[in-house]
């Protein structure tokens, strides 16, 4: 039977997950809760914490806030300031290979290499999302009317991908063949990078704000509907012309967060009323993990072994769900 260990946090849980296998909860109040053998609360930002992203190797956490700082937090609670943009609200971060990070505010994105070198990338309209490619130092920026692909270590023109509208979140498929964006409209857009073929993924009643690639990148699970919508990416043409899986269908609440299991074809699904379940791709078999609470689930993440799941809500609820006693 799954068991829940509740965690007391004082605000909106922006991101929860694991660094060095230690559960963390990054909270909008500016605090990060680290639940190692000696639990501690680190005040990462003076004002609010706006974004948190595990490092590429999952050993540390990069956070940003409305104090304009980008901090690196280690699992032992020590931290250092990586960069600062006074008076800017830094609300987007991405972690890349070899200690590189990217962050953005307004229309500008920056890449900071491990040695502290910074490069600036300006766009005509607001940056909506950042993602590093799985291999090589390549940064994708979601923007108004499309996406831009930069090679931060090389001179030369970026690759521009166009599609009308405001593009927000952005993610590469784990094999690097596809780039997907979540839009201001209730839809996803995608490009097959080999030939920039467009892909439309529509039909959502709400914006897609959470997504997760399944093991080996065969499916992209998404929030924004009354079920977790999983688009197949295994064939040559990706999701085009295919029907997505719909898991955890409910009539009374939308899915607000998803996290695919790291080893099995199973997805954890969080709903707008605070309920959390997990569901198996193959046969829709469901297990209830948490009953409804006070507010929408804002973040869900598995540990590496797939035995523990952390969750957080917009209404200061958080916990660690263990699948084994």
């Amino acid at each position, binding site marked *: 039977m799954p068991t829940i260990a509740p965690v007391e946090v004082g*605000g*909106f849980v*922006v991101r929860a997950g694991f660094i060095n296998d230690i559960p963390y909860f990054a909270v*909008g*109040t500016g605090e990060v809760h680290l639940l190692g053998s000696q639990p501690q609360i680190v005040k990462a930002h*003076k*004002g*609010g*914490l*706006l974004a948190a992203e595990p490092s590429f190797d999952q050993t540390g956490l990069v956070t940003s806030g*409305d*104090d304009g700082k980008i901090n690196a937090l280690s699992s032992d609670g020590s931290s250092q300031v990586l960069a600062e943009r006074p*008076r800017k*609200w830094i*609300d987007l971060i991405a972690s890349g290979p070899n200690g590189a990070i990217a962050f953005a505010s*307004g*229309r500008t994105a920056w890449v900071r290499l491990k040695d502290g070198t910074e490069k600036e990338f300006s766009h005509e*309209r*607001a940056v*909506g999302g950042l993602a590093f490619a799985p291999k090589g130092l390549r940064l994708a920026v979601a923007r*108004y009317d499309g996406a831009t692909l930069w090679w931060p270590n090389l001179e030369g023109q970026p690759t521009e991908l166009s599609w*009308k*509208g*405001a593009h927000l979140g952005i993610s590469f498929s784990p094999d690097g063949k596809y780039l997907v964006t979540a839009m*201001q*409209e209730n839809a996803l857009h995608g490009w097959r990078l080999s030939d920039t073929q467009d892909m439309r993924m529509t039909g959502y*009643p*709400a*914006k897609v704000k959470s997504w997760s690639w399944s093991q080996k990148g065969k499916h992209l699970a998404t929030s924004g509907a009354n079920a977790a919508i999983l688009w197949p990416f295994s064939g040559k043409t990706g999701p085009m012309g295919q029907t997505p899986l719909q898991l955890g269908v409910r009539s009374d*609440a*939308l899915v607000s967060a998803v996290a695919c299991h790291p080893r099995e074809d199973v997805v954890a699904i969080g709903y*707008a*009323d605070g309920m959390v379940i997990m569901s198996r791709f193959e046969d829709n078999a469901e297990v209830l993990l948490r009953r409804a609470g006070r*507010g*929408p689930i804002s973040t869900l993440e598995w540990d590496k072994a797939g035995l523990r799941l952390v969750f957080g809500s*917009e*209404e200061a609820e958080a916990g660690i769900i263990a699948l084994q006693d």
Partner: protein
Amino acid sequence: MTATQNAERAQIPVTVLTGYLGAGKTTLLNRILTENHGQRYAVIVNEFGEVGIDNDLLVESDEEIFEMNNGCICCTVRGDLIRTVQNLMKRRGAFDAIVVETTGVADPAPVAQTFFMDDDVRTASKLDAVVTVVDARHVLQRLEDTSEAEDQIAFADVILINKTDLVSAEELANVEARIRKINPYAVLHRSERCAVELKAVLNRGAFDLDRILSLDPDFLGQDDHTHECGPDCDHDHHHDHGHHHHHEEDPHSVKSISLTAGDLNPDMFFPWINQVTQVQGPNILRMKGIIAFKDDPQRYVIQGVHMIVEGDHQRDWQDDEDRTSRLVFIGRDLNWDVLKQSFAACEAK
């Protein structure tokens, strides 16, 4: 209208502050940020520097107009506001209300529409009032020179006529008459250096909506458009276009209308209001109403910007209240007679 989730979670009230450069917005903002009024405000400004206060709930936001891919020509929202409101919600407990300052030349429509069109913003917050600060000494000139000044007045729920110490009583009366002609429904306050009670501009809520009921529609008149077109008039007299930028630049054409009726039939009213806003949306700046539906003990309140309409039951009609349905439009080139007749046709038999 789709049911919003988590309706039990309180929506944060948002005040939108507009006004021409130099009218006194910054003075008012500084007061909101410094005065001891027991409320904590998150303030979104278009530029730091003018507001001389360091406050971690003060944020700068660059105007980012997003067009919506839904075929609606006037459906634009402020992408930067969506982002900032979502970021503020991560610190929900740190403030009680939000104030959004717009640039002097900003179109208020995308700002207001953001609070109706974006689901996340709508769930988290609600538009409390549009407050427009005007400079008593310069506003008449601004109205001649620009369409933005007129739009800002037309959009307002509350108008602060500032710098009244710099004009004579007669000039002030002229200013007020001109403003009333554009927007008879807004609450007017006179001030020097924005010295007005903050509760007169913040947290207005339903109070200002009720005002449309207390105004006498006959007094307001539908034919107060005194501009006589002559041969020197260079504005466009062809009224056969759905959306016409030239019209919006015409500084004379904003008018308002107040429609009244008894109990309405919802099966007639909703299709009608949807059709009116779809067809005439580009010309409608604001629309507000309080509706009595037949056999419905509750007041239904409705408001809109361009093609967007939002309505909800508010509260029970009280015994001493007259069950009157009242709907007001502020806009350009609207066909008043047709509106009047078709509204009357929605009355319950």
